[in-house]
């Protein structure tokens, strides 16, 4: 058993990345994730790694693009406005089938918004970011311990499927201290990176890392092949936590920090005689549709709770396909939903139902 230590979410993520073999970090300061960069600046030189503070988020993400193409496990981290700037490189990284890990410690938007926790980048992470037909795997930890496990798995998933993987947290999770073990859990078997630009050494044909395909048929074939891979990921990698769902008559669904608040609300609601359970998506893409379908005929209503104006709720509705009413409660602007507010929202739904 590894030793338990008290550590901040952002620093846990940085250390987990190093333990996962990441030796190349490129970043730019932005609140509320700067501890990741500061930790990397301190630790990377000690483990023979590279910490580079780039001139911009754009450059940092393109340095990751270069390092990923060169075969390294590369990481960048930022918060919402910075992720918008990284979107360009993410599209290229996906278009070149390169692995990398990008962290978004989400803050309130739009624009400069605020520096308090938010989940208003769900659309950006799961549907948007850069241009073109592509996806990223998006992982949403809800505790510091889970940050460690998911960071390790993020690098494996990226290498296995040759695509960018995002870890999405929020300011609260990044700043929160919890006792954790730096135990990465079971690791995956990974393919050789024989496609990387490492220099030919005059022993093989040159490797070319490129997303430009001028022939429409060739480009379509390439995109379709990528989407076949995405289908495989949807079938095998979607993950969700079920909490008190066995006898649930109502479902609350939430991810990340919000899911922890929802659990408190669920305990209170059950004391009041309302049987509520939780589905907590761990992968936001692929969205764990099966976890919802399983209960679509069993619960009488679903309440999606988010720190946004309602973004994940769209995917919940698609997953249950009108079989059950899906309600929404959210706070935004850096405000956090309190258990009392969730309880009230659920009571109104349950009351209206009876």
């Amino acid at each position, binding site marked *: 058993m590894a030793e338990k230590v008290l550590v901040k979410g952002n620093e846990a993520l940085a250390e987990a990345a190093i333990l996962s073999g990441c030796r190349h970090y490129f970043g730019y300061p932005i609140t509320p994730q700067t501890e990741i960069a500061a930790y990397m600046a301190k630790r990377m030189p000690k483990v023979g790694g590279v910490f580079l503070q780039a001139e911009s988020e754009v*450059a940092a993400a393109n340095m990751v693009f*270069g390092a990923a193409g060169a075969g390294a496990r590369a990481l960048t981290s930022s918060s919402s406005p910075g992720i918008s700037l990284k979107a360009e490189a993410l599209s290229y990284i996906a278009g*070149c089938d390169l692995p990398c890990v990008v962290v978004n410690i989400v803050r309130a938007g739009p624009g400069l918004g605020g520096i308090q926790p938010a989940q208003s980048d769900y659309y950006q992470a799961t549907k948007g970011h850069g241009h073109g037909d592509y996806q990223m795997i998006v992982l949403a930890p809800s505790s510091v311990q889970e940050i460690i496990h998911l960071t390790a798995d993020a690098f494996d998933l990226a290498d296995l499927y040759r695509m960018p993987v995002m870890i999405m947290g929020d300011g609260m999770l990044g700043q929160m201290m919890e006792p954790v073990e730096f135990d990465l859990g079971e690791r995956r078997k990974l393919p050789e990176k024989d496609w990387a*630009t490492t*220099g030919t050494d005059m022993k093989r044909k040159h490797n*070319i890392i*490129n*997303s430009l395909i001028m022939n429409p048929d060739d480009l379509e074939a390439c995109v379709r092949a990528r989407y076949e891979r995405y289908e495989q990921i949807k079938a095998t990698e979607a993950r969700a936590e079920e909490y008190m769902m066995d006898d649930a008559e109502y479902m609350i669904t939430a991810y990340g920090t919000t899911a922890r608040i929802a659990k408190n609300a669920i305990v209170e609601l059950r004391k009041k005689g309302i049987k509520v359970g939780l589905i907590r998506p761990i992968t936001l893409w692929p969205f764990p549709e099966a976890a919802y379908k399983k209960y679509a005929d069993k619960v009488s209503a679903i309440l999606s709770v988010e720190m946004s104006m309602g973004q994940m709720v769209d995917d919940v509705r698609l997953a249950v396909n009108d079989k059950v009413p899906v309600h929404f409660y959210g706070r935004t602007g850096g405000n956090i939903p309190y258990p009392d507010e969730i309880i009230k929202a659920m009571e109104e739904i349950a009351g209206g139902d009876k």
Partner: protein
Amino acid sequence: MQQVFKKPNALCDVNLHYCPGCTHGIVHRLVAEVLDELGIEGKAIGVAPVGCSVFAYDYWECDMQQAAHGRAPAVATGIKRVHPDKVVFTYQGDGDLASIGTAETVHAAMRGENITIIFINNAIYGMTGGQMAPTSLPGQVTQTSPYGRDPKTQGYPVRMSEMLAQTDGAAYIERVAVDCVKNVNNAKKAIKKAFQTQLDGKGFSLVEVLSTCPTNWGKSPIEALDWLRENMIPYYPLGVKKDKTTEE
């Protein structure tokens, strides 16, 4: 029979896509000759830009990565930090390097990033069909300066080599031209020295190559070479702008 001229080994045996009279082909060849002569094809990793030379990844036999517009120095930085023992270079045009990628270029120089940049300055955006570049000359007629570039509203051309020479991280900066045999020979010497600078671990090296774009300048290849000589060289003086390579 003695062979006196052949394709450099580092140059792929393919047809280049460039327009007739374009000097990209000459510079591609010079880079390949230098890779051959320094014996570094096997340890070279090139970064292709967005612009006319976007397909450059198909033209050199070394490993290649294609970058987003302007980001080649950042991509090269990422590669070089993973493989500090390899030779990493970018090949970029003026729109790529001096407009959309100015920040990446200047900061790579300021960091003293141990990479080599081959910078093609032909005073115009070629691939998109002849728009005003940051390097277009005052009075120069382009698609987006149809009445001639007016510095009062469209600003002045940028002398990147002089600008980059001001940075402490730049080890070797030279401007050359490929308008005549003598200058082509000088260009090759400069490119070779730039790669040698990287091999010696001296820091950032850049060679600015004044080049022609007959198609978008609306001139014959010969007229274009004359125009380069008569108009570009006076504005963009040739020569070494920075040389720290002899310092210990």
